[in-house]
């Protein structure tokens, strides 16, 4: 009974953090940030009693507006699947937060299979996008759904493989245990053992959230809005929020795996109250920083072409992540545990992976379209047109 009560409180708290604070603030921050990047003013009109607060009230205005919007749908849709898809997309993003350890006590369930649980539930999000596109009975939606499913599946392989290196280093899949293993000096953090894995994880996570430069399933200028083209009002919000929550999910997982979770470097956890709150604050700070980085990338890079995305996923990230797993395993087993030698050897191994990957990429440049410039493609096309 007590467990039920405490878990209910935790669930409410996590929902308050994720849905009540992070998502609306992210929506506001992203609009302001994109305005800054593009030299615009950005949203600053919504006001309560003449008080504008830099547009901070815009998320509230958005929610009220979208709640009162008409939800119009194509008559030829599949009624049940069309309604189920946004629920799946939203649900799969939210439920993964059950195992994210925000703090020493602020974790809904400390499962032994923590990271595996996150991957298991998060990959259900593919169903949301695919079913949405199929049930809409719209050609653009179908194209978007196909792109979404193929892209998300491809990058999920990399996402799963990059984590294996970290798991070898810390010998656990439990989210809380991973954080505890990174206590002490800052070089105990995952990022100092697996820097390459972090970069690969970050790129694959950006693709998994389907945001620019990986927003091909949505591609406004190509397929209008892709798989959620036929969604409006609250159902659209559920896709939109699901995307934001997923962004926070991967940022949170990156914090757990690579940035010590709630551990503050050099400060030992002594079970004191102030430390627990400071830990939660540190976790949220790192999470927001990684999410901010994702937003910056989103507003900086243009969209890939589809063959470029698939090439990047299968021909570069996947071999690099396999190489990283092999090198990490060899180094961890060959060197004495916990020593300076092991730390240095891990970094050297990572550098080797990067160098080999770059060399292979350079060697592939002729046959691989990633390296081909638009100019070269254009001449190739015009030559083909002549023949």
């Amino acid at each position, binding site marked *: 009974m007590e467990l039920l009560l405490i*878990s209910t409180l935790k669930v409410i708290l996590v929902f308050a953090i994720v849905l009540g604070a992070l998502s609306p603030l992210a929506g506001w921050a992203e609009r302001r940030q994109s305005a800054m990047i593009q030299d615009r003013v950005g949203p600053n009109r919504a006001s309560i009693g003449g008080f504008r607060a830099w547009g901070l009230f815009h998320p509230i205005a958005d929610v009220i507006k979208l709640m009162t919007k008409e939800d119009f749908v194509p008559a030829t849709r599949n009624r049940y699947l069309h309604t189920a898809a*946004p629920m799946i997309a939203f649900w799969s993003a939210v439920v993964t937060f059950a195992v994210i350890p925000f703090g020493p006590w602020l974790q809904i369930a*400390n499962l032994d299979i923590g990271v595996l*649980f996150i991957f298991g539930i998060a990959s259900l999000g593919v169903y949301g996008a695919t079913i949405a596109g199929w049930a809409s009975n719209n050609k653009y939606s179908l194209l978007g759904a196909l792109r979404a499913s193929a892209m998300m*599946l491809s990058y999920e*392989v990399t996402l799963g493989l990059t984590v294996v290196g970290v798991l070898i280093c810390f010998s656990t899949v439990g989210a809380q245990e991973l954080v505890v293993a990174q206590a002490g000096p800052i070089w105990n953090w995952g990022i100092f053992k697996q820097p390459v894995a972090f970069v690969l994880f970050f790129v694959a996570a950006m693709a998994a959230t389907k945001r620019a430069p990986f927003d091909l399933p949505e591609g406004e200028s190509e397929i209008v809005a892709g798989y959620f083209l036929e969604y409006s009002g*609250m159902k659209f919000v559920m896709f939109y929020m699901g995307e934001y929550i997923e962004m926070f999910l991967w940022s949170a997982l990156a914090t757990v795996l690579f940035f010590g979770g709630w551990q503050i470097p050099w400060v030992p956890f002594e079970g004191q109250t102030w430390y627990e709150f400071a830990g939660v604050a540190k976790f949220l700070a790192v999470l927001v920083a990684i999410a901010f980085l994702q937003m910056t990338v989103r507003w900086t890079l243009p969209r890939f072409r589809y063959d470029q995305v698939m090439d990047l996923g299968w021909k570069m990230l996947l071999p690099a992540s396999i190489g990283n797993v092999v090198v990490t*395993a060899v180094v961890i*087993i060959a060197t004495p545990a916990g020593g300076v030698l092991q730390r240095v050897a891990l970094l050297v191994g990572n550098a080797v992976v990067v160098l080999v990957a770059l060399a292979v990429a350079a060697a592939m440049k002729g046959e691989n379209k990633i390296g081909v410039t638009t100019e070269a493609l254009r001449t190739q096309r015009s030559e083909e047109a002549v023949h």
Partner: protein
Amino acid sequence: MLSSYLPVLLMIVAGIAVAGGMLALKSLLGPRNATPEKQKPFECGRESTGSAHARFSIKFYLVALLFIAFDIEIVFLYPWAVVAKGLGVVGLVQMGVFLGVLVLGFIYVWKKGALEWD
């Protein structure tokens, strides 16, 4: 042991409740006046022709097949990764053979051109 999954169940139910609640709010607050024009699938203002469930490239099917092979590989890697330190060299060699077979398959798939998109 099983009780540690009770909070997860709670979270799952809460997730469904919030998602359902959002849909309920929509149908409570949103207006409803559908017209035949509104209910057409959007195709940039043109009359829609034929079913949207058309044929699509077999490439997507190939990607799904490859994904299954690699995802199952990863599922096998996870338990090994957790006990890799304890298993030592023996485990490393065994996993190396397992990974090696898959990498060979990957190279074959690459050379066959299954990863090309044009």
